[in-house]
């Protein structure tokens, strides 16, 4: 499933993996685009699977003419050995009937590669929030028990809010609680499979709605940066992220002048 780009195999042992979940507003994917573009990460491999819709295009992070024509596929892995960071970018939706298979493949790849921790960037429908969630920060996190052993209560100490559970039978007072991430795509599947396989994994998500989700991506990424410190930021200011070339024309082509 993972195919290395060059002949030399890459080792991810001890690295941190950041990956998006295909979720409402595509916020995770936008945030990952910002990470790869800002840190100038180089592609080290592909995730070649039939669980994702195929896609091909030219280099989305092109900075000059020479690298503009590198072909890009629907799921690629980028790496920054100095930061011991690997990033997986997924560019197309998961085929609906293959969602479970995809989660299992991802979990087994994460386990086999030996990542020390995995971060899933995701989002959830803002309109599904309850009264309490409407107040305060729209950012939430979830961590697997294995991750709890690694980071302890660090995230709670940073005033991060854990994602609330919902009652299985709304209205019934003592029904059991379950995890519910509407609009999160494969987030819940990845999280539950990682719990079962003892993988240190954290989900960081933001409540948002469809629309121009670039501000949501920045919010999510700045929040993540307070923990992982991917980019240095002087106190009281936000870090500077570089917007990739592929973000042009997100809302369509140029307007015909004859329209006016």
């Amino acid at each position: 499933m993972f195919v290395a780009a060059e002949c030399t195999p890459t080792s991810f042992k001890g690295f941190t993996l950041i990956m998006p979940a295909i979720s409402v507003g595509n916020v995770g994917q936008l945030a990952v685009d910002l990470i790869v573009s800002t840190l100038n990460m180089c592609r080290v491999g592909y995730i070649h699977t039939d669980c994702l819709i195929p896609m091909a295009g030219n280099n989305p992070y092109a900075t000059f003419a020479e690298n503009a024509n590198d072909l890009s596929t629907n799921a690629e892995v980028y790496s920054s050995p100095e930061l011991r960071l690997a990033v997986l970018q997924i560019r197309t939706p998961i085929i609906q009937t293959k969602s479970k298979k995809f989660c299992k493949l991802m979990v087994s790849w994460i386990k086999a590669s030996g990542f020390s921790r995995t971060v899933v960037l995701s989002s959830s429908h803002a309109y599904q929030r309850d009264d309490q969630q409407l107040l305060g920060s729209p950012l939430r996190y979830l961590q697997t028990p294995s991750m709890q052993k690694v980071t302890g209560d660090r995230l709670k100490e940073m005033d991060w809010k854990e994602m609330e559970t919902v009652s299985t039978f709304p209205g019934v007072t003592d029904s059991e609680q379950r995890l519910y991430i509407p609009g999160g795509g494969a987030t819940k599947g990845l999280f539950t499979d990682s719990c079962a396989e003892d993988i240190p994994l954290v989900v960081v998500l933001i409540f948002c709605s469809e629309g121009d989700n670039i501000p949501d991506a920045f919010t999510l990424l700045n929040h993540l940066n307070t923990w992982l410190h991917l980019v240095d930021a002087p106190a009281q200011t936000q870090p500077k992220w570089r917007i990739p070339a592929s973000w042009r024309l997100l809302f369509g082509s140029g307007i015909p002048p004859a329209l006016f």
Partner: protein
Amino acid sequence: MATFFGEVLSVYSRAVEEDDDDLDDENEDERIHREIEEKREVHIVWCPEVAQSLEDSGSNKLQCSDLIIAVGTNAAGFLSAYVLNTESWDAVGHVSLWNERSRGSSRQSIAPLPGEPACLFYRHRDNPAVFGCLQKRGLSVMVLSDSPVAEYKTPDYLYGSAVPFLRSLKSSASKGQALCPALEQPNILTGLPAAVLSHCQVHQIPAVLYQCYTDVISPDSITMETFKPALLCLSKLVKLEPCLSADVLRKFAIITEAQSNLYT
């Protein structure tokens, strides 16, 4: 989601489906899904001669140096009119498949007739290496595909005279110049052409894709002619008809007739 006038609209997301959460299959659903999966498997049916050489080769692979794939009515029409029409090509196989969009409830066992949606394999008579079965070494792939110009994103508005036009994409293993400008970001490709190109990229097979953007929905001779530069690099192996009579082109281009006119 409530709106200004009080009616409730369902919110949809471009990224996720509504019922993504809790996909728990019952046992009998699983069996039905498995049966449908088997029914949807893609099989390739070869002519007896090719089937024999596949068996003889031991590894079930055919020798191939160049594979040309055409996806879309205009691309396929171009190949049929300008290349396959030179009478030195044999039809050697076809793809037999079924999915929920096919007419009929079972797959076809005979080769598809012209005019039906189909996938056919042709081999050059004099140079049997020009065709394909995807072996990895010594193979180079060319894909021709067409797409509506409405899907092409550009900051400056495209005037009518610029259309149809070609853009190209190459895998990293493909050396040499493409014969038209590269597809600019943020344009992308999906579907079969993208799947072929991704496969070639991941397995380091030289591949080049020519995408023609056109404003005509049906097969059209002007659009088909746009693909001509694409076959120049294969001109040693593949003979192109330099100029075609109108009759030949008419066979491949469907003239849109008014199917139902409101006034007749």
